[in-house]
C-alpha cells in the first residue's frame, strides 16, 4: 500500500480510496453476503432461543480451521464440515426429549468443550506455531479471494433458498412447537435442518468476524430488530439492514485504523443493541408514566409479545 491510509474530511474521497483496492471490494462483498445470511438465520435463532447452540456452532469453526490447516486443505472447507457436523450433533443431542433445559444446555456445552479441545489438539499437532491463531479467532478481512467470495455467495444462496421453502412451517414450529406438532409439522426434523443451516451461516460469518465474534452479526442485529418491532417481516428486514450497516461501517473504519475489523464490527453492533434496549426501556417507562396501571389480566396463551 505504500503510505498509511489517512482519513480525510472528504468522505467521498475516502470511499473511492477504499474501493480502489481489490481486497477491500472483496471484503465488502463477502461481508455483505455474510451479513444477509447471518441476519436471516440469526433472527430465527433468537426467536427460537437457541443462542447457546449458535455460540457452540461458532466454536466448531475453530477445530474446523485448525484441522484444515493440519491436513493442508483450505480453511473454508474445515469451517463448513465442522459447523455442519456440529449442527447435526447438537440437533441429535438436544432437540426434543424430556430433559430439563439445564441438561440440554449441558449437553450442548459438552459438544462445545469437545470441539475446542479437539481444536487445541490440532493447533499443537500443527507445530505449536499457528501464526494465524489471532486471525482465526478474531477475523481478518484481508486476502479474501474472488473464488472465496463466489463460494460464500453460492452457499448463502442455497441456504436462503432452503430457508424460503421451509420458512412458514419453521416459523410456526419456532413460535409454538406443541401446536405445530399437533398439526402434523415435523418439528424435530425442522429443528435439526435449522441447526444445519445455522451451521452454514456460522461457517460463513466466522470467516469474516473470526470464530469468537460471530455473534456480532448473528445475535446483536436480530436482538436489536426484535426489540424494535414485533412484526416478523419488518424485523427480519431491519435485522438484515442493521447487519449490512455494521459490516460496511466496521470494515470502512478498520481500513483507516491499526485495530482489527472484528473490534469495530462488534462495537458498532453492540452500540446499536444497547441503544435499542435503552430506547425500548425509555418508551416503556414513558407509557407506564402516562397511563394508570391496568388491572391484572391473565396472560393469553400463544400470544407473541
Amino acid at each position: 500500500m505504500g503510505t498509511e491510509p489517512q482519513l480525510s474530511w472528504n468522505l467521498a474521497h475516502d470511499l473511492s480510496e477504499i474501493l480502489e483496492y481489490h481486497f477491500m471490494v472483496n471484503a465488502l462483498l463477502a461481508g455483505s453476503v455474510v451479513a444477509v445470511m447471518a441476519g436471516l438465520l440469526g433472527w430465527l435463532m433468537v426467536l427460537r432461543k437457541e443462542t447457546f447452540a449458535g455460540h457452540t456452532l461458532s466454536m466448531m469453526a475453530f477445530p474446523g480451521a485448525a484441522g484444515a490447516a493440519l491436513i493442508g486443505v483450505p480453511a473454508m472447507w474445515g469451517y463448513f464440515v465442522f459447523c455442519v457436523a456440529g449442527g447435526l450433533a447438537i440437533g441429535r443431542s438436544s432437540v426434543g426429549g424430556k430433559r430439563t433445559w439445564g441438561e440440554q444446555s449441558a449437553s450442548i456445552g459438552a459438544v462445545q468443550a469437545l470441539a475446542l479441545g479437539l481444536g487445541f489438539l490440532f493447533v499443537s499437532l500443527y507445530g505449536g506455531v499457528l501464526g494465524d491463531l489471532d486471525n482465526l479467532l478474531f477475523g481478518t478481512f484481508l486476502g479474501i479471494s474472488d473464488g472465496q467470495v463466489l463460494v460464500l455467495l453460492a452457499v448463502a444462496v442455497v441456504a436462503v433458498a432452503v430457508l424460503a421453502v421451509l420458512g412458514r412451517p419453521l416459523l410456526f414450529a419456532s413460535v409454538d412447537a406443541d401446536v405445530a406438532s399437533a398439526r402434523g409439522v415435523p418439528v424435530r426434523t425442522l429443528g435439526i435442518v435449522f441447526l444445519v443451516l445455522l451451521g452454514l451461516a456460522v461457517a460463513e460469518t466466522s470467516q469474516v468476524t473470526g470464530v469468537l465474534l460471530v455473534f456480532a452479526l448473528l445475535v446483536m442485529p436480530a436482538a436489536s430488530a426484535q426489540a424494535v418491532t414485533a412484526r416478523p417481516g419488518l424485523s427480519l428486514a431491519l435485522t438484515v439492514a442493521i447487519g449490512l450497516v455494521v459490516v460496511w461501517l466496521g470494515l470502512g473504519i478498520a481500513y483507516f485504523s491499526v485495530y482489527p475489523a472484528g473490534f469495530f464490527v462488534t462495537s458498532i453492533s453492540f452500540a446499536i443493541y444497547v441503544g435499542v434496549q435503552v430506547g425500548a426501556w425509555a418508551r416503556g417507562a414513558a407509557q407506564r408514566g402516562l397511563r394508570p396501571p391496568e388491572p391484572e389480566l391473565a396472560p393469553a396463551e400463544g400470544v407473541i409479545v
Partner: protein
Amino acid sequence: MFSQEFMRNALLAGTFIALACGVSGWFVVLRGQVFAGDALSHVAFPGALAAAAAGVDERIGLFGATIAVGAGIGLLGRRSFAGGRGTAAAAPADDTAIGAVFTFVLGLGVFFLTLFSTSSGGGSGIEAAHTLFGSIFGLGAGEARLAAVIALVAVGLTLAIARPLLFVSVSPDVAGARGVPTRLLGVGFVMLLGIVAAEATQAVGALLLLGLLAAPAAAAHRLAGNPYAGIALGGLLAVAAMWGGLALGYAVPGLPPSTAIVTLAVGIYYISTLVA
C-alpha cells in the same frame, strides 16, 4: 511422574480447581446457567489481556473481569434460571443478552491484544494461547498453592450457601415467600462462578472451562437423584477427569493436557447418558 515438580504443582492446583468446577457446576446445570458459565469463562480472556496491556499481574484482570461480568449477569438476569422441561422454549430469555454482552467483551479483547502486541512488540500470540487454552504444566509452586487455596474457598462458599441455593433453584417462588433472599443468592452465585471461572482459566484455559464445569456435573445429575450425593459426585468426576487428563498429557507426547482433561470429562458425560 510425581518426581517432576511441575507435575506436582499441576496436580495440586488441578485437583482443587476441578473440585470447585464440579461442585459449582452441579448448581449451574440445575439452574440452567451453562451459557452464563460459558460467557464468564470467555470474558476471562479479555480480562487477562487487559491486565497484560496495562502491565499488571494477569490474575488481577482475570478475577476482575469475571467477577464484574458475573455481577452484571446476575443483576440483569431476573429469571435467569428456568425450571421448565422439554424443548428449548424453556430456555431463559436473557441468553440473548448474555451473548451480546460477552461478544462485545471479546471484541474488547481483540483491541487489548492489538494494544498489547504493539506496545510490547510480539509475544502476543503465545500470551493469547496460554489464556485461551491454559498452561497447567507451567504453574509455579506459589501459583499452584494460591490456586488451590482460592479454589478451596470457592468450594467452601458454595457448600455454605448450598441449602438456600438449592431451595431457590428448585422453587424460586416458594423460597421467596419463605423469606429466602432469592435475588441476592442468584447474584452471589454468579459472582462465585466468576471466581471459579477465573481460577479454572489458569488450568484449562478460557475456552475449555466448560468441559470441567458442565460435563461432570451433567453426568452427576443423571447418576445421582439426591442433591448432596449429586454435588459430591460432580466434584469427584471432575477430579477424576483432571487426574486422568494430567496423566495422559504427561504420558502422550503432543497431547495438550487441557485437551485430555476436557475429552475425559465429556467422555464421562456420554457414558453416563448410556448408563442412566
